[in-house]
């Protein structure tokens, strides 16, 4: 029989359609057993290990932060396991590379939520990406510990969403106070995102209360390559100091532009306690004052010093802001599990009840959570000043 091409096509279409229909029938058959109620999951029960899931950028634009996070996570995990794990259970960390992209966070979150060995989630780097996953963890009764999410609305997704980030109000009040002791007329630039806008508002209120006059203010986009158009008027307003509310790489760009291109010689407040900031600015960072959470070279807390030593032994480099917050996140959750039980419910209960989480940042000591805001508002920031390419903790 000769099959013409038209017949052939029809023939193929029929087969394809039949396969589709059979699949449909097979699937419909499975209907009776299942529903739309979500995974019931198997109970973790008697397993000898528990898992913390980390959603973080291993690749892509923010990969560098992911690398620092992972160093902190791994160090903390190994220390926890060396001391016998959490109530005798070995701690695992499951890593999920999301590139800090909301689409990928939303896609991996259900997988994490349905894995019953997972007792808590840490990450992601950015707040939009983290927030895309939060509703799913909230629904699963799983603690979402957004240790890098200082966005003011981050914890609004539900009662299982927590962040140990210092509240920007506390942070910026300390910042404004440090500024007010050194300058009464200032220019302020801040990063154009949720964090930067909210921080600037807190800073502005505190600064005005302290009698500081803001003679110029402007935001800037995180990915701008040239900030001279806003820094020229900032400098021309003849301020006694320039304040930047932003992150490391953009802080470096601002310090470099002010010092190199615009010959600005006055005091500079800004930057971030990272190696990156120091290496990008070189001599331009000299004297810069930062309201920070941690300084490897300046910390006076014994726990923090022990962390710095073990970090240097393992990675042969000095830890900064991102490494310590990642390290602290795992330590916090392990401590929480130890105090109650290494389960989802246990972690959630502990975060609202335990009042003495060991604190490696700020002034050291311990901290607890504010159960209303699910933020750690007892952590006090510290003042750091760059001197000879190193952060020094300074006392007021």
């Amino acid at each position: 029989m000769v099959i013409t091409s038209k017949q052939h096509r029809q023939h193929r279409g029929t087969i394809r359609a039949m396969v589709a229909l059979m699949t449909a029938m097979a699937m419909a058959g499975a209907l009776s057993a299942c529903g739309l109620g979500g995974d019931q999951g198997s109970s973790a029960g008697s397993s000898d290990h528990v898992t913390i899931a980390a959603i973080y950028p291993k690749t892509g634009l923010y990969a560098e932060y992911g690398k620092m996070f992972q160093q902190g996570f791994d160090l903390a995990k190994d220390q926890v396991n060396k001391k016998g794990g959490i109530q005798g259970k070995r701690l695992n960390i499951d890593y999920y590379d999301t590139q800090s992209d909301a689409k990928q966070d939303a896609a991996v979150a259900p997988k994490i939520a349905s894995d019953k060995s997972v007792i808590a989630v840490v990450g992601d780097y950015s707040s939009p990406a983290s927030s895309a996953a939060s509703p799913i963890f909230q629904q699963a009764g799983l603690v979402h510990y957004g240790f890098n999410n200082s966005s003011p609305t981050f914890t609004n997704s539900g009662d299982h969403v927590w962040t140990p980030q210092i509240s920007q109000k506390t942070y910026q009040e300390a910042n404004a106070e440090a500024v007010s002791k050194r300058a009464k007329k200032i220019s302020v630039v801040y990063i154009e995102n949720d964090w930067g806008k909210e921080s600037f508002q807190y800073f502005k209120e505190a600064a005005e209360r302290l009698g500081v006059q803001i003679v110029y203010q402007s935001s800037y986009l995180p990915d701008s390559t040239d900030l001279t158009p806003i820094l020229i008027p900032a400098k021309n307003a003849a301020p006694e100091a320039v304040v930047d509310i932003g992150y490391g790489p953009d802080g470096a760009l601002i310090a470099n532009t002010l010092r190199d291109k615009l010959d600005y010689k006055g005091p500079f407040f800004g930057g971030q306690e990272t190696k990156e900031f120091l290496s990008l600015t070189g001599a331009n960072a000299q004297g810069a004052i930062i309201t920070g959470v941690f300084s490897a070279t300046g910390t006076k807390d014994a726990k923090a010093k022990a962390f710095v030593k073990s970090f240097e032994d393992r990675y042969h480099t000095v830890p900064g802001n991102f490494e310590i917050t990642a390290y602290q996140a795992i330590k916090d959750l392990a401590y929480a599990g130890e105090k109650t039980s290494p389960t989802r419910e246990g972690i959630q209960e502990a975060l609202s009840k335990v009042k003495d989480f060991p604190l490696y940042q700020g002034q050291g000591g311990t901290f607890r959570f504010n159960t209303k805001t699910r933020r750690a508002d007892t952590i006090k920031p510290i003042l750091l000043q760059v001197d000879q390419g190193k952060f020094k903790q300074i006392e007021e």
Partner: protein
Amino acid sequence: MVETLFSGLIHGGVYALAAVGMSLVFGVTNVANFAQGSLVAVGMMTAWWVGSSLGWGLVPTILAVVLVTGLVGLITNLLVITPLEGRQPIAALLGTVGLGQVLDNGMQLIFGSQTRPFPQLLPTHNLHALGISFGTSDLVMGLVALASMVALWAFLTYGRTGQAIRATSQDSQAALQMGVPVTSIRTIAFVIGSVLAGIAGIFIGLFKTNINPMDGNAIGMTAFVAAAIGGLGSIPGAIIGGLVLGLAEAVGVGLFGDGVHDLITFGTLLLVLILKPSGFLGRKADMGKEPMTGTLPEAARPIRLPLWANLGLAAAALATPFIFSDHLAGIGTQVAIYAIAAVGLTLISGSAGQTILGLAGPVAVGAYASALLTMRLHWPFTLSLLGAAVIAALAASLLTFPVWKLSGHYVAIATIGVGAVMVAIIRIWEPLTRGSLGLQGIPLPTFLGKPLYTQQMQYLLDLIVLLLVLAVISRIRSSHLGHVFEAIGEDGQAAWSLGIRTGAYKALAYALACGAAGIAGALLAHQYTYIDPTLFNPTMSTLILTIIVLGGMKSPTGAVIGSLILVGAPELLRILPEVRIMAYGLVLIIFIICRPQGLFSTKRRA
């Protein structure tokens, strides 16, 4: 003000350098090279490596950069651009998107991901005049820009190869008949363009002082805008475009702050295109020829399934939420949302033959519209979903109104501008949108007043919406209106001669596509419960376009398959994260070369 203008001029010089290579490649090969920014980054990273690790001076650094970028250009041209020769230029465009991903991620693997200081190959701020400080590097950069322009002009005017390049760029068929080895001429032009990108990388590094291997994307987009402002294919145009863009940004940002940055960049682009439809010095594109547009292969058409098979497939799809795990359903929601946006795009990019490069804009408008309607006006979700579609379609129609009188590549470019301007307006309109603060606490989608709180429920909702959108789009395609869209896509000039107002119909198809994009955005907003302007970036636009190219531009069903592969597969194949995105780029290139008509299309027989 003098200081601001001067800094704008210097920054504009940097843009100009990056734009020159892009314009040259475009003029000769008709390829909008989206990997040009990545090639700039290759030059920048090479210069960083030899300059700081090996401590080489400026001249040996330039030689090393010329060698490396020339070689990379040659290899990529042989492997990616040449095999796509003679195909619709959108094939090459998407090939270069894949190429850019391979280059960016490859560099990150080789050099590591940190931001690093660029070596001081030349002093940057050692000179002072008129209260302005500048550096030897700025002077040298200006000279290099000027010299490269003069050298290119002389080469193109007097050199044998240069004349061949011009002949090829004017009419490659005629050039071929006159004995010009068109393929090698294109290769030469591509290599020159790559080398120019590399040299631009050195000066961009000097200007930026801090560099990252992933910088290429942003540089490429700005270079593209600068080249379009100057007129694609015109070398002096690229320089003028760069300078105009640099000045506009400096003055605008100086006056209104950096929040308006994108509005100024892309607003300038739109304004220039509206006033001078082919840029400052571009050749006037002829009406019928829209080289960057059109379906991927001219002779492709979707595979048609009989009705009962379609119904069977739909039933099968509707059964999946009941048997999928949370994880699969979670991936399914993302696949379905992107598929909804892509299905709409088949109308304008597939049928009407107009490439749209900024669809993230209408997605953002839909997301914000639905979020605000439910949060502020307490509309029920079902109603706000429809509202999102209408508002996205209206906003897109209003903003693109002047665009449809443009022709050639410029419409596609203008859609990039429109998409970016939409997001920029959302960022600025703080009282309504909360700008960069984002919207938190958007209610979950509801059905009959009940919140859909599990992944399976949301997935089922997304699927039903997807099927409805598929039904509507398919209905339109088979209607009279659909045939008009097809006629415009097949041959715009013929359609015009028959009295069809092609611009108006394209605008209509675009509005319909934006309506679908708005629905996708609304679903996304209610499932994430949080949105801010950074979610709706150019990567999202490219992804949606790539989905329909992969699936078959004219096939709505193909769009679903494309989304399954491009959004779903990377989630299912979470192995070797370091190379996951690189592999994605490679797969894209291979697909475009091997199955140009898309997965769900057949080649039409003559």
